[in-house]
């Protein structure tokens, strides 16, 4: 479920080829108890992207079971290609 009420939402950011394929750069997902990064990836429609990288509040993480809460930011990213 998506909502625009910023006080109780998680901001999800998309980058690179993922943003291009989804045709959007950000969405809001309603926060709820026990919501994990894996849940966010699924709700954002990104479960089919491989490989993908995830950051929680601007820190890259590998634990997809990490719980996220209201006001958090989750970035769903393709592998980096800077340099």
């Amino acid at each position, binding site marked *: 479920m998506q909502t625009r009420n910023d006080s109780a939402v998680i901001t999800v950011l998309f980058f*690179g080829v993922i943003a291009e394929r989804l045709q959007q750069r950000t969405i809001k997902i309603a926060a709820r108890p026990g919501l994990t990064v894996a849940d966010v990836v699924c709700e954002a429609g990104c479960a089919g992207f491989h490989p993908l990288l995830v950051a929680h509040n601007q*820190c890259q993480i590998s634990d997809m079971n990490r719980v996220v809460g209201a006001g958090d930011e989750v970035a769903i990213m393709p592998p980096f290609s800077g*340099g």
Partner: protein
Amino acid sequence: MSASVRVQDDDFSIEDEVLALRQCSPRIGGVTSFLGCARDFSEGRAVSSITFEQYAGMAEQALVALHDEALARFDIIAVRIIHRVTEVHPGEQIVLIVVGAEHRAAAFDGCRWIIDTLKKRVPIWKKEQTSQGESWVSPHP
């Protein structure tokens, strides 16, 4: 003096960055650098330009963490890292790493580690405009 770690649109001067690094300490006896530039080809296709996307905030944080970790890992004295995130054309500068140490071995090792690790840890992406359309760049080893 400009910050030693920067993500920016503007071009940079290698000479200015090396000078700034050397002014950090009179103990610096060796300076190494890596300069990444835009090529005019990629996987057999002509490339007319490259655009960059960054995760603003996290990209600079990741570069600062890289800078700090390099200083802790290697016997080096000073590091400067600059990455551009604008549109660049073949021959133009993209990324610069400058490392100063008492001796050359540590400077070379630190510089190599920084560029290799930057490619894995810093949320920046390249998109090439080629003769066959646009395409996102896959990570290079």
